C-alpha cells in the first residue's frame, strides 16, 4: 500500500526516476496504477473534447473500442460558489445563482430565494408565485430543448441543435422581457420577482404554446422516429432504480428509470399543487427512456404554462415586507428544494444573524447524475459511453460550481 490518500499531488516524477511517468498528470498516474488489462489503452476524453459539454475530463481505459472503466475528473471550472455565498450578503449572492447552471438559471434563483424566504419567514404574494412558475417552466422548456439538440449532436446529427435554438430564441425573447437578460437570468427577489409581465409577454407566450407543440411533432419525426437514432440509444445505459438511489440521481434520469419522483409533486413548493400535470416516467430505463421523459416533460411544462397563464391573479409582485439590501439574515437553518431541468436542486442555508449566511450548501443534481457515469459506462462501446454521458444532460458549471 502506498497510501493513496497521502500521495502528494504536487509531486511529479522526474525523468531519471521513470521516463514513462513524464507523460500525464497526477490523475493519469493514479488511474494507470489500476490498469485492468496489459494491452488496454488509457485515453483522456477532455477537458477539451467535443462531447463533454465544457471542461469535463474523463479518463477511460479502452480495450479496443470497449470502455473497461471510466472516471470523471472535475475541477476545471471550480468557482467556489458555496464559499462566495458565505462571504457575500444574500442580495449580493443572488446573481451568482444564475451562473451556476446557465441552462436553467431561474430554478437556481428560486432555490436560493426560497431558502432565504423560508429562513426569514417571508410570505410571497400570489401573483409573484405564478410569475415564478411561468418563468421557471419556460426556462425548463428551453433547457430541455437545448439538451435535445446537444444530445443529437453527441450522436453525430448536427442540424437538430440549430432547430432547437429557434425555440430557445423564442423563449429567450420572452424571458428577456421580464428578466432583462438572455442567459444568466436573475429574475427572483426575496419576497417576489423583479418585474411584472406585460401584454406583449402574454401574447408571445400564448402564441408559443401551440407553436412548441407543433415543433415537438417535428422533433419526433426528424429525430425520435429516425431509425439510426433509435438504434443508437435504445437499450444503451440501463439505470436500475437501485443504482439511481445509490448515487442520489434525480430528475429525468431517475424518472427515466421508472421512478415517478418529482420535487414539484413530492415536496410541493410555490403554487405547483394547483396545477394538473403528469409526471412522465420512462417505459424503458435506457437512454431512450430518458430521452422520451424529457420530451414529454416539455409537453407537461406547456400544460403548466397554459394553466398558470389562465389562473394568473392580479396583485402585487413583491411582498410588502421585502428585505432591503442592508437586511440581516436571521439565525437558523433552512433547506429548500426545487425541481430543475436536471433534477433536484437543493440549497441549505444556515444563518447566524450576520450580514451573510454562516453556511451555504448548493446541491447540484448534475453532480450526483455524473457520479453514476463510472459505473454505467463500464463495458460499453466508446460511442455508447458518450451517448450515456449525453443522456445525463450535464452542465459542467453546475457540477463544478
Amino acid at each position: 500500500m502506498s497510501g493513496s490518500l497521502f500521495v502528494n499531488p504536487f509531486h511529479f516524477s522526474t525523468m531519471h526516476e521513470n521516463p514513462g511517468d513524464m507523460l500525464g498528470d497526477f490523475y493519469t498516474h493514479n488511474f494507470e496504477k489500476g490498469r485492468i488489462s496489459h494491452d488496454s489503452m488509457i485515453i483522456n476524453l477532455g477537458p477539451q473534447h467535443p462531447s463533454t459539454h465544457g471542461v469535463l475530463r474523463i479518463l477511460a481505459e479502452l480495450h479496443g473500442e470497449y470502455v473497461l472503466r471510466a472516471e470523471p475528473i472535475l475541477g476545471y471550472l471550480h468557482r467556489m460558489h458555496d464559499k462566495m455565498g458565505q462571504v457575500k450578503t444574500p442580495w449580493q449572492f443572488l446573481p451568482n445563482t444564475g451562473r451556476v447552471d446557465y441552462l436553467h438559471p431561474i430554478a437556481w434563483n428560486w432555490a436560493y430565494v426560497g431558502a432565504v424566504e423560508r429562513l426569514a419567514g417571508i410570505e410571497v404574494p400570489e401573483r409573484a408565485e405564478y410569475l415564478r412558475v411561468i418563468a421557471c417552466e419556460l426556462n425548463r422548456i428551453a433547457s430541455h430543448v437545448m439538451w435535445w439538440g446537444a444530445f443529437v449532436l453527441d450522436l453525430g446529427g448536427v442540424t437538430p441543435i440549430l432547430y432547437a435554438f429557434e425555440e430557445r430564441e423564442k423563449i429567450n425573447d420572452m424571458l428577456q422581457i421580464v428578466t432583462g437578460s438572455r442567459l444568466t437570468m436573475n429574475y427572483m427577489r426575496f419576497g417576489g420577482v423583479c418585474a411584472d409581465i406585460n401584454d406583449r409577454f402574454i401574447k408571445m407566450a400564448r402564441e408559443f404554446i401551440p407553436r412548441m407543440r407543433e415543433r415537438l411533432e417535428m422533433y419526433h419525426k426528424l429525430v425520435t422516429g429516425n431509425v439510426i437514432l433509435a438504434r443508437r440509444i435504445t437499450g444503451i445505459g440501463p439505470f436500475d432504480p437501485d443504482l439511481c438511489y445509490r448515487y442520489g440521481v434525480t430528475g429525468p434520469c431517475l424518472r427515466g428509470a421508472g421512478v415517478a419522483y418529482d420535487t414539484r409533486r413530492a415536496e410541493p413548493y410555490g403554487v405547483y399543487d394547483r396545477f394538473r400535470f403528469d409526471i412522465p416516467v420512462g417505459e424503458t430505463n435506457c437512454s431512450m427512456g430518458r430521452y422520451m421523459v424529457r420530451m414529454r416533460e416539455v409537453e407537461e411544462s406547456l400544460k403548466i404554462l397554459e394553466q398558470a397563464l389562465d389562473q394568473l391573479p392580479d396583485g402585487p409582485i413583491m411582498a410588502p415586507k421585502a428585505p432591503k439590501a442592508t437586511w440581516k439574515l436571521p439565525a437558523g437553518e433552512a433547506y429548500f428544494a426545487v425541481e430543475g431541468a436536471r433534477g433536484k436542486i437543493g440549497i441549505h442555508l444556515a444563518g447566524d444573524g450576520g450580514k451573510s449566511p454562516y453556511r451555504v450548501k448548493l446541491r447540484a443534481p448534475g453532480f450526483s447524475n455524473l457520479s453514476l457515469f463510472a459505473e454505467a459506462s463500464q463495458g460499453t462501446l466508446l460511442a455508447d459511453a458518450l451517448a450515456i454521458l449525453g443522456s445525463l444532460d450535464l452542465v459542467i458549471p453546475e457540477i463544478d460550481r
Partner: protein
Amino acid sequence: MFKAIVDNVKGLYSLLVGLHITGRYALGPFPIWLKLKKPENGYPQLTTHYPRQTIADEDLVTFRGPVELIPAENDPTKSKCVSCMMCVKACPSNCLTVVKGDEGKAPKLWTSNFTLCSLCGTCVEVCPASALRFSHDIYWVAEKREDMINDLLAKLAKNGRN
C-alpha cells in the same frame, strides 16, 4: 427474420421522412420558394445579419445593458444622484466608484467598471433617489480595457447637451 425485414424497411422510410423535413426547411414552403409569397420574419432564414439588420427596438426596451445615470428633470446634464453610497456598498462585484462632490450632495466622479459588472441590477434596485437605470445598448464595444470604465457623469453631460 420477416419482422427484421419489415423493421428495416420502416427504418428506411423514417430516413426519408427526415430528409423531407430538412429539405423542406432548406427550401422553405413552395410559395416562398417560387417567390410567390413574401417570407415572414426572414423565413427560411432566421438569424439577424448584424451590420445590415439590427434587432427591433421593441425587443431592446427590456434589455438590460450597462447601467447609466438618469438625468434630472430640470437639468438633463445633471444626475439625480445624492452620493449616499448605497449602490457602492451593495454591488457584489465592486465595480462602482462614486466620489462625493465638494459642495452639496452631487457626486463629482461616478464610474462603472464594465469589465467587472455582472449586470445583476442590485445598484438600480437599492438606489433611494432612483438615479440609476439600465441602458439598452447592446452594440457597445471597446478596444481597450480602460475604455470599459464608464464615466457616467461625462456621458450624461454629453447626452444632455445634445
